[in-house]
């Protein structure tokens, strides 16, 4: 394994950890952005350029900003009095540890059956575009619909109520 891989993985995991552990919300948002970036690099290292750049565009460019806006609108910058962790945080940690243990064990047990190397796929954007409108046209349209609905829904949900508010 190349050192690039280690570095990038470390960055991603660190960012994720920071996102979960840090107390100020904005710091968490920024940390998760770092995690997103690390993941984008990982995509790139896997020769999934389009996915990587899409990741950067969408996640870092939209989702992270969205999160920051939400933090802003919900006054997340103030630290809560009761603490940031739930009362039963240990149960959550244990459960996620169990999940990781299960997944990890599965992976490690079948490590020798997994391929080590593979030929580099030659994938161009042109191929992806063709696939989008040829084979995956239905999902494409549905996702389009979904995005429209999501947009409309988000607007409606977040809109100020006209009358009879609270």
């Amino acid at each position: 394994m190349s050192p690039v891989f280690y570095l990038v993985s470390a960055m991603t995991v660190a960012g994720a950890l920071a996102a979960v552990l840090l107390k100020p919300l904005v710091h968490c948002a920024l940390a998760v952005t770092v995690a997103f970036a690390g993941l984008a690099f990982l995509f790139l290292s896997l020769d999934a350029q389009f996915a990587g750049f899409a990741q950067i565009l969408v996640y870092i460019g939209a989702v992270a900003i969205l999160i920051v806006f939400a933090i802003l609108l919900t006054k997340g910058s103030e630290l809560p009095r009761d603490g940031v962790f739930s009362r039963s945080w240990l149960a959550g940690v244990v459960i996620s540890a169990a999940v990781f243990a299960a997944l990890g064990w599965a992976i490690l047990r079948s490590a020798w059956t997994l391929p080590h190397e593979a030929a580099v796929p030659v994938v161009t954007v042109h191929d992806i575009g063709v696939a989008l409108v040829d084979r995956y046209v239905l999902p494409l349209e549905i996702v389009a619909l979904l995005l429209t609905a999501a947009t409309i829904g988000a607007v409606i949900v977040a809109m100020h109520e006209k009358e009879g508010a609270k």
Partner: protein
Amino acid sequence: MQAATLFTPQLAASPIAKILWLIPAMPIVASGVISLLKQPRRKAATVLSIGSLSFSLLLSLIAFAHVVAGWAQGAAVRETVNFTWFQFGSTTVDLGWVLDPLSSVMLVMVTFVGLLIFIYSIGYMAHDENYTRFFCFLSLFAGAMLGVVISNSILLLFMSWEIVGLTSYLLIGFWYQKPSAAAAAKKAFLTTRVGDIFFLLGIVWLFAQTGTLLFYNHGAGSIEGWALTGLLAQPAALGLSAATAIGLLIFAGAAGKSGQLPLHVWLPDAMEGPTPVSALIHAATMVAAGVYLIARVYPLMQAGALAGGTTPALTVVTWVGASTALFAALIAVAQNDIKRILAYSTISQLGYMMAGLGLGGVAVGMFHLITHAFFKALLFMGAGSVIHGCHEEQDIRKMGGLKSAMPLTFATYGIGMLALCGVPIFFSGFWSKDAILESAHGWPLSQAPFYMLVFGAVLTAFYMTRQISYVFFGAYRGHNHAHESPRVMTTPLAILAFFAVALGVIGTPAWPWFRAFLDNRAADVSLHAFAEPAWLMLLLTSCVIVVLGIGFGWTLYGNKSPNAEAPDALERAVPWIWAVLRDKFYVDEFYGATFIAFYEWWARVADWLDRRVWGGAVAAVTWLFGLWAQLNRFLDTNVVDGTFDKGCEEISTGGGLLASIQSGRVQNYLRILALAVVALVAILIWSSRP
């Protein structure tokens, strides 16, 4: 005793025999119609009852003429009309009626005397407000009595017998507001009931033994040849044959109805009823029904008798009859109520009739029955006239000197009294009593009945003289002015008086028509019979009896006017005998102390049983049910409901518990989700192990 000659059976019934059933039916229908009338409808009631009985009289006369015609030609008549009432299995219950000399004679007597008494009642009951009810019951009685007379089936006879008893009860207790009348009616009914139970036993036994209820059925009847031999052969108990035993049982029933010795106690009390009732029922007809019954079943009573001999059944009848005759005559001597004297006289004369049946046969007993009916009805109606004239006074010590105030009544009463005493030659009573004394004298077993009957005759003459002296002679000791009765009452008296004299003709030894008619023999007129020494002896005896009795009576009481409060002449002479006689030999007291007391005790025991034991059992069952109900309720409330409620509570609690899983917190749900995923993955891995 003469044996009855066989009657040739009639194959086809004559027209009059076919409509014989109308004779009892008409008065019964009249009674029914009267009962439905709206009160008071005196004219309608009178017309209906007298009309129906007149019609019955007419039919009876036709029937009688028919039978006489047959007898005169030498072809004896016994016609029966039988029919089956119902059938169960192979046994049939038959009813029917018979027309023979015995029944035809009785029919004429009952309807004729009955009609006269009905006419008399119009006057006697004129002031009574329950006039209509009286005639209704009277008609019912007449119909039932006639039913007894014509019945050929012992069951039909018993049914009519019971209705007769019922009407007797209704009429004795006619003035039911008087407690003494109600008590007397009850006493009559209960006493005759005792006899009737034995009668019923006899009926059932006879039916079981002979298989038929009919008396005469062309040779197959229960008192005809075959049946009688069977009954004689069948042994009963105590060395008696079934025939004797059944005969004694039937006699027990007759003894109740005819007031023979142990069961006589109801007759004097029955005088509580109106006088026409006493005349009709307790003198002429109902009490005679017992005698008639014995006459009807005479072949049964007589079965097994050798020529000139007697049977155990008839011996019992004779002794009972003779004892009753003497006993009642003794009591009659010491009575002060005009009707009570006549009541005891009736009991005594019924004893004579029964003795006559036992000693001399059907003709002897029946002849006395017929003559007695006329003069006793006459005496009772005369007494009624006297009571009416003295404004409802019945104590003879408060009467007197009525011969001038009520001449017609006195004349007819006198004739009746002389007939009853048996004054020779001119009066029918002499001839009938004479026949009985003759048979008693010739009885092979003992002369005791003869002497008892003779002494009884002396006493009869004595007490009748006493009564007439008190009532008609001397000075009037009453309070109100006495007057003669209206013509509607005195005319029947006159008619009866005529017959009290005239009927003697048919029973004299010179021309024994009555006996010949009943026994189906030719009757020859032979005046030589008067010259026989035996008969002359008897005539002398009767003369002596009459002279002794009347003479003694007249000496003590005649034309004197004893004070109502002063003791009787005889009482002064033999006070303790007088006391016993006046108190009727204490028979009623004896019954009260024994049977009645026992019955009351038994009733109390039964009441206790009913209330405590059976009632207790019922209460116990009820309590058990209550307990069971309580148990059920407890189970229902606690076990069933409890279980149900508990169950629901558990479910509710469980639901509550389960609901607590829904914390409403999203993160909890997520955790559980994640846990489930882990579990799933673990299972998948574990199951795909090689």
